[in-house]
């Protein structure tokens, strides 16, 4: 079907590469970070309470659920609900009809999927301010994310993680 619905196909591909993603926040951060690693996602992100967030991505995921390409499982988790996303058989069929070329995204998505949402929130926040020097980024994290109480050690780990991901993304391009 040529380019119609190709942006939907990219999101399905990313979720397929992760096998399963638990949590809407985690899904948002994973796509944002992948986009910053130059994977060609079209959704636009703005800074939000939990860091970069895309209304367009929320909408697209909801559409994919309505289209029967994604399964969304809602689970009660303490005082709130958590959402779990997997690909349906129809989604697999759609992807086979609409192949997406994002070589080795699987490695990046799997790696991120092994991290927790809190850490990915920190990583994505650092990437959002990647035009600023590190000292200013740290100040931003401490002021805008004061409730998360990130430590300097965690921020260093996040920087290291970004460097590692970038290396993988460069390998991806080759």
């Amino acid at each position, binding site marked *: 079907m*040529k*380019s119609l*619905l190709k942006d939907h196909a990219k999101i399905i591909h990313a979720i397929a590469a992760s096998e399963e993603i638990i949590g809407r926040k985690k899904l948002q951060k994973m796509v944002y970070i992948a986009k910053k690693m130059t994977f060609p996602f079209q959704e*636009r992100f703005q800074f*939000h309470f939990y860091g970069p*967030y895309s209304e367009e991505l929320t*909408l697209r995921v909801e*559409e994919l659920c309505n289209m029967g390409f994604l399964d969304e499982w809602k689970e009660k988790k303490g005082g709130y609900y*958590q959402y779990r996303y997997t690909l349906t058989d129809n989604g697999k069929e759609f992807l086979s009809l609409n192949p997406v070329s994002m070589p080795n995204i699987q490695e990046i998505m799997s790696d991120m999927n092994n991290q927790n949402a809190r850490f990915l929130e920190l990583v994505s926040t650092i990437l959002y301010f990647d035009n600023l020097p590190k000292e200013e980024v740290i100040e931003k994290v401490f002021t805008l994310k004061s409730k998360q109480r990130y430590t300097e050690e965690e921020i260093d780990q996040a920087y290291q993680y970004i460097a590692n991901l970038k290396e993988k993304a460069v390998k991806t391009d080759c």
Partner: protein
Amino acid sequence: MTYPMEKLREEKVFKDPVHRYVHVRDRVIWDLIGTKEFQRLRRIKQLGTTYLTFHGAEHSRFNHSLGVYEIVRRIADDVFKGSPEWNEEDRLLSLCAALLHDLGHGPFSHSFEKVFDLDHEYFTRAIILGETEVNKVLSKVSKDFPKKVAEVIAKTSKNKLVVSLISSQIDADRMDYLQRDAYFTGVSYGHFDMERILRVMQPTEDQVVFKQSGMHAVEDYIMSRYQMYWQVYFHPVTRSAEVILTKILHRAKQLHETSYSFKSQPVHFYSMFNGEMKLQDYIKLDEAVILYYFQMWQEEEDSILRDLCCRFMNRNLYKYSEFDPAKEYKKLAELSILFERAGIDPDYYLVVDSSSDLPYDFYRPGEEEERLPIQLLMKKGDIRELSRESEIVDAISGKRRTDHKLYYPADFLYDDSSEPAIKKEIRRLLDLE
């Protein structure tokens, strides 16, 4: 008197159809309005292609920016002044952020951003922080003042009260555009009692709250927003014009990439085509420039570009059908093949367009799409989230409405001078027979 505090000898006023008058007393604000980057907003329509549906919608981002400034000025000078939670030093920061919040919008920005991967928020920051007349004015206030203004607009400022004035579920931006867009489109929706809302606003440390007695005015605002989105902003004819505009840009870009020789060289597009948009090139763009090219491209050799530009300039828009992606995505694939067989390129002439809106949402711990909720200040002094008190708002809270449409040039499909059988089949699939 220092520059940040300097007042004009005589107050300047702009006549305004929504607020009656926009009052300017601060030298800084007057100087900002006079910059070339702010004056550029006169040449960018607030509602993009909506004028092709509602002929009155020719108002500009300049009008709207002044309106947002005026609302924030009234909040700061008439409502918050003297309140212990309001820091008078934040007044100028709030006014400048309100005035400049849309500074980076380009012509028909929705389509341009999509096709060329641009971001108006990036350009708002770039104009405020770069080598511009706006930056020169702001830097005269203090060295770090441009950065503070940019952070408020980007919602990354630690001053959450000021951010919430410009950007929240009930902010000066929305209060102005709902009323202004209703006025210029001529629709009867979009009206609400802003005077009442301003009177019941109170500052807190990190956001604005509303006295319980003003709840019905706030309800009215939420409902008018809901109606404006579906009656005006997502109007299917406006979306048709936007679909064609987007396709013109795609076509021009594709032709450039295949070294097509334009009769009218798209000089102003080169940096976009090459993905190297510089600030100074961006500032030169406005709707007059873009429409000049569309006018000229009506005489291009390339039949697709020529046709799309003729359609846009002469309002010969695509027709539309309701489309349910969940049930009809296979039909879409079938249509795409038939379009190709009929010699109508589906990349340009078969388009799914979706609109979606969430009229109001409230905080749910742990979820990502939380928005800053509207808080009511109850008579006993406690704070309650709006949808817990208002049954009307509760009924629409968290409920996203989405609409999908399939756009196509019906005139091509009824032209049986070529491939009549295939076109008949397309018409059958689209329920046009």
